[in-house]
């Protein structure tokens, strides 16, 4: 992935997550923790997973769901899954 596409991906992930948790995307800095800083619970975490899978065409494993706590973590996971998918 080029730096440009990574930036685009990060913005797309922010948009997807912001829509699910009904927050302004600008509040989602790369290190802002959804659970600690934005009150996201396990139910919203699953909704985020469903939205990321649907919109980005990836499959997130059960044990990866709790690991998506920030946009940065989501980006790292999505990047990894996209690379595997495109191999």
């Amino acid at each position, binding site marked *: 992935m080029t730096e440009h596409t990574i930036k685009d991906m990060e913005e797309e992930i922010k948009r997807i997550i912001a829509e699910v948790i009904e927050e302004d995307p600008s509040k989602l800095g790369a290190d802002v923790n959804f659970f600690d800083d934005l009150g996201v619970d*396990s139910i919203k975490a*699953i909704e985020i*997973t469903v939205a990321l899978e649907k919109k980005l065409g990836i499959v997130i494993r059960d044990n990866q769901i709790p690991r998506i706590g920030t946009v940065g973590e989501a980006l790292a996971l999505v990047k990894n899954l996209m690379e595997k998918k495109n191999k």
Partner: protein
Amino acid sequence: MKDKRIVITGIGPVTPIGVGKKELWQGVLSKKTNVRQEKCLIGRETWDIFYKHKIENFDIGAFGLKDDDIEYMKDWKKDAEAIDLYYLAAAIKLALDDSALEYTQNDNELSLVVAHENPGLEPFLANIFEKLAFFMKGKPDMTRKELTDKLYNACSRAGYETQAFMLLFHAAKIFNIHRYSLFVNNACASGLYAIEAASELIKCGRSSIAIVAASDHPDIYKYLWFKELNMYDKSGVLRPFDKNADGFVFGDGGSAIVLEDLEHAKKRDAHIYAEYLGGGFSLEGWKVTTPKIGDDFYQKTILEALSRSKKNKEEIDVVCAHGVGNRTIDYYEAKAITDIFGKRPAKPLITAFKPYIGHNLGGNALIETIILLLAMENNIVPPTLNTNTVDPRFNIDIVKEKRAIPINIALKICCAFAGYNAAAIFKKEIK
């Protein structure tokens, strides 16, 4: 040709709070739970400690089974006692006795559907771990082949017990069941899948009678998996739909019911608990331990059960929820209930039975169906124990005190691991 109607004419519960229907119902009314601490020792060291609803002082010899059959089971199981088979056999015996069914032993048209998540797995694992430690002790230079040979000789027979067909074999042998047989494994929803399968066997004319049985004896290895998933309540208190719910608590148990063609039951003047009107089923195909929140598979499952039963949602008196005490799964279930019945519906009443008997995994839906049938028979809705404050996100009210109301139609629902959703509707009044 007119559709056959399916009724339940016998029930056999083996639970931590009572064996047999009378003792179980007394246990429910007196809010028994029989939660006990399980300390798993490896040699003298404690491996782990957890709580579960435990069957104590169980004696397979107390059910009137033939000595030869008990000896055969014990002999077959000599490497590792498979208590779940004993629970299964005891439950079937209780259900058959309760049904007062008489049948010829050398040939008959009885069918059998057995549900279980992982028969024999716990004792097999316990056996192999123990033997491995034993063989390695003082012989660290043993070759891999030598060790494999020893383990094979010591444990292979217990390994064969994990083959599901063995449960069918033992039940068929003990009770002389000679027609169609089927093993069902749809995780926690297995019991309702088994009832539907047995019902279809009768409807298509293969049998007039089908026995549905399930059991489980969850132990340390299952506990460790749930602990790893952060889904087990360390204090041993299962709180369905509560804001402080913190996970499952296992329960030992066996359960069996006798399903019968209504006309057949009438001819022999059998006692009828209820009619099985129909079920709804779906498979999410998404994740193993996480329900697909945001989708509506569970709602469709309940609607299918209503449609197949030709009932309106307004006719349901009681819902017996899966109620596992995991806040994510409870949310998923509460959402499905409110989507169908509305927010905080006055009717149906909603309750859950796991706080009494624990989570019996592959057997839970059948064992809870038996409690539901007893609730229908007694026109009493047992309260959901341990639920003090329903999570404010859920929009449902849970029965907190025993309610005496006429119960004619009841719904049992279940949302299991791996996305198996099931719903079944039962009706007491038979016209």
